[in-house]
């Protein structure tokens, strides 16, 4: 039995926690930004898949890894533009549009991938991001290798979360985003154009989602396969609620989920003979639901979430 707890004190567990959490942090921040402006973006699962594919493909064709991330971000922003066009300008149902975009983007990813890379037995690979040791900090015992020896995009994710928290709370444009998500009519009455704010937030948010997807193919793994997203987008949507729409808490939620996930992977090795492994696979989701229940009861949902804004109508 001691093995079960010993796992918690291994460097390997904690360094993989941050790695597993990174795409979730990107995705959650992206979805959070959209929702703070009042738009639910269920296109996330597909946008992440597309980001994973297009980022990888760019690098495979010879681009720099950072250029790959940038390409993913631009592609994500384009899907954001599509989502905003349908939900903000036309005022269509955000649920249906988002699911449609997920289905479209997932299939489209596979299509482009297959055109570029004809079917092969072993999927082609690229040279991914390498771990970057933070000077001094990475030399600390245990904590160093566990937390400060990650690839660059992981640090970027943390940096973006901090920036987004500051942006929303302290800048005039962040305030414009929040008031648009709470009451677009109030924004309009103060001379802020809610339509433009929503377009901007959805495009930027979708770009973040796509970068989260690209992290998988350019850092966590080194190849693309169409089913690799495995519901990470949906986890992000839940994490937004868990985070109560606050970027700082989004990191916390992503780390918690990643901890469950990393832990269960290792538990499978220890207890795999006794308990069917499917139970362990299920565990992070179950615990997430539990955490969701505990954390989100006092959450303040953006009041205008999923409400289309039409000028002159109240």
């Amino acid at each position, binding site marked *: 039995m001691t093995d079960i707890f010993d796992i918690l004190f291994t460097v390997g567990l904690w360094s993989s926690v941050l790695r597993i959490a990174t795409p979730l942090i990107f995705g959650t921040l992206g979805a959070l930004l959209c929702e703070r402006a009042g738009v639910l973006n269920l296109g996330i699962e597909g946008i992440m898949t597309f980001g994973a594919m297009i980022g990888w493909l760019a690098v495979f064709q010879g681009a720099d890894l950072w250029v790959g991330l940038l390409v993913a971000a631009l592609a994500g922003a384009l899907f954001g533009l599509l989502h905003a066009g349908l939900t903000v300008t036309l005022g269509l149902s955000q649920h249906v549009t988002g699911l449609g975009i997920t289905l479209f983007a997932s299939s489209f990813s596979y299509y482009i991938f297959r055109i570029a890379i004809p079917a092969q037995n072993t999927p082609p690979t690229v040279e991914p991001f390498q771990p970057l040791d933070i000077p001094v900090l990475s030399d600390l015992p245990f904590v160093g290798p566990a937390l400060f020896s990650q690839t660059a995009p992981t640090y970027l994710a943390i940096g973006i979360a901090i920036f987004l928290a500051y942006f929303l709370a*302290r*800048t*005039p*444009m962040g*305030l*414009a985003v*929040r*008031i648009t998500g*709470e*009451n677009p*009519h*109030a*924004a*309009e*009455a*103060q*001379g*802020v154009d809610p339509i433009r704010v929503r377009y901007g937030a959805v495009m930027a948010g979708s770009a973040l989602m796509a970068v989260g997807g690209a992290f998988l193919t350019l850092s966590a793994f080194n190849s693309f396969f169409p089913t690799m997203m495995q519901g990470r987008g949906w986890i992000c949507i839940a994490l937004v609620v868990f985070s109560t729409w606050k970027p700082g808490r989004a990191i916390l939620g992503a780390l918690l989920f990643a901890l469950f996930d990393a832990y269960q992977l290792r538990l499978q090795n220890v207890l795999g003979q006794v308990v069917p492994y499917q139970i362990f696979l299920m565990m992070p989701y179950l615990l997430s639901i539990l955490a969701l229940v505990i954390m989100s009861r006092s959450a*303040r949902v*953006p*009041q205008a979430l999923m409400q289309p804004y039409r000028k*002159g109508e*109240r």
Partner: protein
Amino acid sequence: MSEPVVLHLDSVTKRFGSFAANDNISITLHRGEVVALLGENGAGKTTLMNILFGHYVPDEGEVYINGSKIAQGKPKEAIAAGVGMVHQHFSLAKNLTVLENVMTGTEPLLGWKSDTAKGRQKLRALEQKFGLSVDADARVGDLSVGEQQRVEILKALYNDARILILDEPTGVLTQQEAEGLFQTLRVMAQDGLSIIFISHKLNEVMKGADRVVVLRAGKVIAERATSQTSKEELAELMVGRRVERPVREASTPGAVVVRARDVVVQAGAVTRLSGISFDIRAGETLGIVGVSGNGQAALCDLVAGVVPADSGAFEIDGHPVAQLTPRDLSGMNVGRTPEDRNTQGAVGELTLWENAVLERISDPRFSRQGFLRKAPARAYCQALIERFDVRGGTPNSRISLLSGGNMQKLILGRSLVQRPVFLLAAQPTRGLDEGAIAAIHEDILAARKGGTAVLLVSEDLDEVISLSDRIMAIHAGQLSPAVDAQGVDARQLGLMMAGEWGGMR
């Protein structure tokens, strides 16, 4: 007036389809002046203000501010020209703080940091100058309605508004809050601001404005200085004919229909009604006055059979209500007009006829073996429309298309047509205009004359005094002793509403 003109609307016309909501309207506003725009619902007041603020583009005419023409259809232009608008339904983000609501859009969007310290200082200065105190860091959703309105006004002032437009500002306020508001407006006018407020209430127009512009059917009918007019004249101008609220005739009440003895209603740990007792006899109206939030809602829920009494006895027509459902009550011929007609009284998405028969849907006249009988239901609705003078729709129109007054006539009508033994009328005329109020009063008095026991719950003292035989005040879940409506004065009622009935029998 010697003060300069700050705002001039020149021959403004706005049509929706073939309907002219504003027909060739010209209005001027001087510096330091308070002007009331008086008119019934549908007279075109709100349309006019939306044009002024840039929400609508007029078909003809121009708006001049301080002598220069402003581009139309752009709220930003209006804000920049110094116009601030306080909407009837507030444009506030409830989850944000007061300061955040006020500061939105006042800084360049690309800045790296909101200068909250400066914003806070400016807000504080405005609060002190005009006596509009409010906590800058409070979440707007936690504030009372009166405070939220202050935030709306502060928002306009923060944007350096010199012309303030208020759309039905007192519609959501209590009497005390309304008086505070008009004091504030007065201070602002003395400071050189110019104010237009929209209203259909004669009392506040006479009290709050220097000048009144009367609008009827989209046209300016008259302009009067308040010092040279009277409520009666304004009422006549506004409605286009003499309107007098009907007067209660003396009557002899019959047997006791409604009996409450020491009724207690609790919601969780909160006592909403603590030991109330009253009787209502056939052909008698009992009026309940009180400041909102003192237990009126609980009383109405109790009487409507929605909430049971936790202790005590409550009977209608000899039946203990605790054992009855709302459906049993309508079967017993108890009529109810709920406090909020839009959420409790009618289903906006359904048609008039559906709403008319909704509470009697299992009546064999309207359904047979689980199938609706539409033709009789429509005919029934048509009869209601004719008898209670419901205008603006056919039995097949959606009820949300009706004006508040006409919706209320239908809701009241569907109760009264059955000649109920008991009628609950909760806030029956809230938000209605003079003409509709007179019609509703007429109906309630006719029911009383026909032998119905009426419980009238209202915040409008004039209404309660003119319709009731006896009046009780509700305060903190308790009822005062009843006073005779004949010869009661508003001061006495005011004391009762404050819970000061210690000396009374």
